[in-house]
């Protein structure tokens, strides 16, 4: 612990040392490789949000934001290289959008005293702030997603899903395996049958899994997919004529790029979401005026308004609010890495703030605390309308089964704390 404090102090000093007056936001993007289809809108949205902040407000608290992009190709080795290359520049907040890279970074950011925000991905038990001091995963996590999906099915079926067959098609990696424990616990609680169908990286080969689905005819198929795996799964589902309205993807399997290649056959496919979808947010007017019309959009500029683009707009907004909070708490505009962690930990999101920055309804109101780094865990269900080419939100934002999830989080995070000799915080 002493060593950790010392390194944190050194990291803080190093960040405070040079008088570079800018707020560095690293963006570990993946615009290449099999996951680029998701990585491009994510990287574009994040970059455009901070371009907007710089153009419209002149930065945050008067200090311009510099987005430092580094290409990882969703590869953990390159992710580590990117982290090491960018952390020395005073990077405030890492958002890798990759569960594999998140697992690499959790111990590293904790030792270096830098904040890590994994919104709806990464290690779910990081929601326990007592154990994970520098990692945040608000507003919702994978286990929330699993529970929201089951709750949705409960609502659809009048509260009884006993004996129903539910299949989980998942990316055979840390990401895809995350919901299994929760689903198994929920299966016991609600009495449904769960079958597991792993798909290996990168996910182009799914014939056998869908053959099995065709044979077993599960009532519902859940999917934890990412990148090229999503398109292939939806195509395979269409090929075996699986009813699309019974096919529900997690929030990383519900973007335009996943369904458009399948065409009309993808109509009715459902996916969860943790942020509002569509382009009906006032912030898009600002983006149009300050970013797109000024020719400053990131990448090819063709991702505006897509699901994943909006998600990183929302991620950018949350980071923006955390920086404001840190500036307010410490009374300095050019905040350090340690101050950013404070800002994240004391972040409060209210409807007034969302209204002020043009993202009304994009996410819930919530407050982060020392103990709770996970937020409220709300999720909604969206459905793809192939004719109109839009995702429609078909349910309200609803809470997950916190009773089940909190117990699982407690168990997993305590195991991690014991394994790594971590002293509990927030006492």
């Amino acid at each position, binding site marked *: 612990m002493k060593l950790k404090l010392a390194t944190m102090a050194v990291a803080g000093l190093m960040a405070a040392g040079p008088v570079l007056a800018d707020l560095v936001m690293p963006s570990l993007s993946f615009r290449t490789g099999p996951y680029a289809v998701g990585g491009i809108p994510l990287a574009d949205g994040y970059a455009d949000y901070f371009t907007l902040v710089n153009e419209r407000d002149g930065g945050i608290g008067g200090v311009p934001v510099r987005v430092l992009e580094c290409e990882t190709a969703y590869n953990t080795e390159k992710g580590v290289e990117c982290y090491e290359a960018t952390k020395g520049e005073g990077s405030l907040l890492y958002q890798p959008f990759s569960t594999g890279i998140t697992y690499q970074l959790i111990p590293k950011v904790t030792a270096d005293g830098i904040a890590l925000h994994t919104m709806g991905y990464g290690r779910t038990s990081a929601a326990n702030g007592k154990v994970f001091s520098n990692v945040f995963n608000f507003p919702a996590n994978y286990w929330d997603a699993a529970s929201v999906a089951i709750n949705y099915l409960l609502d659809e079926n009048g509260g009884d899903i006993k004996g129903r067959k539910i299949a989980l098609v998942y990316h055979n990696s840390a990401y895809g395996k995350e919901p299994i424990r929760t689903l198994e616990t929920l299966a016991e609680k609600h009495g449904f049958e769960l079958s597991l169908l792993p798909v290996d*990286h990168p996910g182009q080969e799914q014939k056998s899994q869908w053959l099995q689905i065709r044979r077993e005819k599960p009532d519902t198929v859940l999917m934890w997919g990412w990148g090229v795996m999503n398109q292939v799964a939806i195509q395979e589902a269409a090929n075996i004529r699986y009813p699309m309205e019974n096919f529900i993807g997690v929030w990383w399997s519900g973007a335009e790029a996943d369904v458009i290649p399948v065409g009309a056959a993808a109509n009715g496919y459902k996916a969860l979401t943790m942020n509002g979808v569509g382009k009906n947010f006032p912030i898009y007017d600002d983006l149009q005026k300050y970013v797109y019309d000024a020719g400053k959009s990131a990448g090819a500029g063709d991702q505006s308004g897509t699901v994943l683009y909006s998600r990183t707009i929302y991620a950018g907004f949350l980071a923006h609010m955390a920086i404001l909070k840190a500036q307010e708490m410490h009374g300095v505009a050019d905040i350090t890495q340690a101050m950013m962690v404070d800002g994240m930990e004391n972040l409060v999101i209210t409807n007034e703030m969302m209204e002020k920055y043009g993202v009304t309804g994009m996410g819930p109101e919530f407050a982060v605390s020392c103990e709770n780094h996970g937020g409220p865990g709300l999720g909604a269900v969206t459905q793809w309308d192939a004719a109109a080419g839009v995702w429609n939100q078909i349910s309200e934002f609803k809470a997950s089964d916190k009773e089940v999830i909190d117990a699982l989080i407690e168990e997993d995070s305590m195991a991690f704390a014991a394994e790594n000799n971590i002293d509990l915080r927030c006492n």
Partner: protein
Amino acid sequence: MFYREAGDFSTTYAEDQQTFPIKFDRYRYYLVLFIAIVVVPFVVNDYWVNSLLLPFLIYAIAAIGLNILVGYCGQVSLGTGGFMAVGAYSCYKFMTGVDIWWGGELLFRLPEFNIFFSVIMGGVMTALVGVLFGLPSLRIKGFYLAVATLAAQFFLVWLFNRVSWFYNYSASGQINAPERDLMGILITGPSTEPWAAYLFCLFFTIVCAVIARNLTRGASGRKWMAIRDMDIAAEIIGVNPLKAKLTAFAVSSFFVGISGALFFSVYLGAVEVGEAFGITKSFLVLFMIIIGGLGSIFGSFAGAAFLVLLPVALKVVGVDWLGWPTDIVAHLQLVIVGGLIVIFLIAEPHGIAQLWRVAKEKLRLWPFPH
């Protein structure tokens, strides 16, 4: 003028048979060792160690291992990624204490091994697995053997994904290296000082290279090369193919296992078998030895350096200096590295090691080439 035997007299057999018989060469070697051991640890930072030096050293060990099998013994292997995974998972099990179950009950649990011995055990277990998968090499050759080792690659990755015992039943299926120290100095975990991690890997690299060098120029190396050049002739002159091939598999897998163990415990700290030890890893190490030079220890280092450092160098030039978009640079990187591999194979099929040999020949004649 500098690089020549003239005036360098050996008075004992031992002197005559040393690895670097030429004085200039020997001093250059000592200088490289001196800089690597004494100077580098004082000047490196996190970035240099974690992004360049550790991957270079670790891939160099893997390349030496594969070079023994492919370059010296002529047995093509595409299972390097799988064997590295064996090293990594054995290292993890030994550093967290191997638990043996029987009929649903915990029979006993080995004490946690020190990180140093965990890495060694990673090598030992991989050597055993390597011998097992090397058995078919007695009956099948060439491309067929390549396919058999490819099966090893897929089987091992599947195994480590499927059997949760290997990752201590963690929900995510990942293995995470806990903090471990060697004589009070942290070697694994996030608080490790960069120099400690560097020296730990450097130690293994030097020892592996010295062992490999001496094995390959001794009796066993000659047997391997005899098998490589013509196995029937080798058998007729009295080389036992069973022994030669299996020792090559064992020694090669031992080194590959050590590199896998270091790759997981010291370099990454957390791995996921499909992503870290997939088929691409096997090809990467194979490219390293092809570009570096088959049948050369120096070539293994050169190949590892080429494929580890070049992408980073291109990224620094493209993104940091020229300010190009990151995706363009990433694509260019693939094009340039791929192009260079093709050019190398056409212009210098024997790899970078051959360039080095030619340079030494030129030095020998310089300044009066005839």
